[in-house]
């Protein structure tokens, strides 16, 4: 009776006090357990299991197990089975505590036989290359049909892993993983859900686990910087040399024509001969001008520049191809985000 009173009083202790002393409670409980003070240990483990204690799921599972063992060792079989029933319902993956002996194992097996539950076992972070499959371990307490699926934050099913008949511990594989790019580069919350239906019976159970799925960005290469204008050679000459040639021809021709005009002024006669040569000289200047303008292209430089551009394009194409393959090889990362629900 007084223990019951003590239990109620302990329930009234504020959560903040519990949160600070869960480890202390577990330590004291462990000490009591080792000192074979099983009733004391049971009390302490019960306080750990209080909703307001702030204990983690792992601490609760541990406390649940040791509470059951304590009850069994204290001769309280019914309490032990009741506690083990809760443990199995919450954590179907928990193995039978054979280390504590046959009586404890029997109580555990009895409890497991009375409960239909499904659970996800130790979901660890997985890094998947293209083509890999994600693997999740599940456990059911009785033969069941288990369906697993992935839900997004809105509750929409993203991927259905299918249904399989299973008993005990088995694995569920996610094989047809879509393009990692669909999951984004930053961790997004998803929920991994397993739903079990008893094969002989009507009971069902469902457990879920928040996980994150994302594809970190590929380590891509930088594109080669565009070629600066300064690396290119001039592909054509200026028109100045051609214009100078024209000027030379015309000026020298004019000089020849003018000289004969001056010379013949007092000796009569024509200056046709001088004009003929002046014309030939001017014509040569015109030909040089036309040739200079049409032959401006510097073919050697044009070939050099074309080779530079082709080399740059080849480097760029190589980088694009390499980046494409790196992006295609992006891995998918699956991480548990919290505790089972």
């Amino acid at each position, binding site marked *: 009776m007084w223990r019951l009173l003590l239990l109620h009083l302990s329930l009234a202790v504020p959560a903040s006090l519990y949160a600070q002393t869960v480890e202390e409670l577990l330590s004291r409980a462990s000490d009591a357990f080792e000192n074979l003070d099983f009733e004391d240990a049971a009390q302490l483990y019960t306080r750990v299991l209080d909703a307001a204690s702030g204990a983690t799921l792992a601490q609760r599972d541990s406390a649940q197990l040791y509470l059951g063992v304590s009850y069994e060792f204290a001769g309280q079989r019914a309490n032990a089975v009741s506690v083990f029933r809760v443990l199995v319902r919450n954590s179907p993956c928990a193995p039978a505590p054979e280390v504590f002996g046959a009586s404890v194992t029997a109580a555990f097996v009895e409890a497991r036989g009375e409960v239909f539950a499904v659970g996800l076992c130790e979901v660890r972070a997985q890094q998947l290359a293209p083509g890999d499959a994600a693997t999740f371990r599940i456990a059911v307490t009785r033969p069941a049909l288990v369906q697993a699926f992935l839900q997004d934050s809105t509750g929409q099913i993203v991927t259905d892993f299918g249904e399989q008949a299973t008993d005990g511990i088995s694995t569920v594989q996610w094989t047809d993983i879509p393009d990692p790019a669909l999951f984004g580069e930053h961790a997004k919350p998803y929920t991994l859900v397993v739903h079990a239906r008893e094969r002989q019976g009507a009971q069902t159970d469902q457990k879920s686990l928040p996980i994150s799925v994302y594809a970190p960005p590929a380590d891509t290469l930088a594109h080669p910087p565009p070629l600066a204008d300064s690396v290119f050679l001039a592909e054509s000459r200026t028109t100045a040399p051609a214009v100078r040639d024209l000027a030379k021809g015309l000026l020298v021709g004019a000089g020849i024509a003018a000289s004969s005009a001056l010379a013949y002024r007092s000796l009569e006669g024509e200056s046709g001969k001088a004009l*003929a040569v002046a014309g030939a000289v001017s014509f*040569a200047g015109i030909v040089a001008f036309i040739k200079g303008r049409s032959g401006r292209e510097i073919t050697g430089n044009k070939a050099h520049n074309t080779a530079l551009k082709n080399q740059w394009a080849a480097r760029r194409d190589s980088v694009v191809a390499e980046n494409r393959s790196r992006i295609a090889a992006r891995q998918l990362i699956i991480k548990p985000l919290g505790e089972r629900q």
Partner: protein
Amino acid sequence: MTRAVPLIATAILSFVASAEGQLSVSGKVGYLDRRLSDRGIVERQAGAVGGGVVTLVSGRVAVSITASGGRLSAQTRDTPDVDYGGITGEVFVAPTKWLALYGGARLSAYVSSLGTQRWILPRVGAELRAPFASIPGKVFLRVAALVGTTTNGPTSASGGAIIGGGLAVGRGKFRFFADYQLERLNFTTGDAREEQWGEVSAGVRVIL
């Protein structure tokens, strides 16, 4: 004078043979127009002439010897036909690509029914050269002064001038050239005598 010509030619050719340079020979044809104004009367003789040129270029120096001749027909009344022969020796020095200074002399003879007139016409001058950038060739203008001219004629010239120009184009061993040259003499006589030679010629030069 006639004995000096072979000596000068030999000296020049010796220089040609000993120096490291570029030797070329040219053949040319042309038309020579000779005019003489004496006491207001203009006499004119003209005709085709032909000849050859030997040139040696060594660095910035070039030596050129030209020989030409032909028959000049009378183009005015009471003017005789003459046979013309001449040889010209010139040395060019080109301090820059566009300027050459030159000096030399032309020895010419005009043989007619009236006799033979000989001239020695020394000259100093400059040639402005303008090579083309777009085609292999160049154009040039030439000016010179006739100094110390002598003749076996009764009158002597007080001086004169040369003006001319032309072009040379070509690639490799061959060059085509065309040029025009006008030589004008002034005389010391009081009746304003003038004598002038205008020649247009064209030819091919072969670099050996």
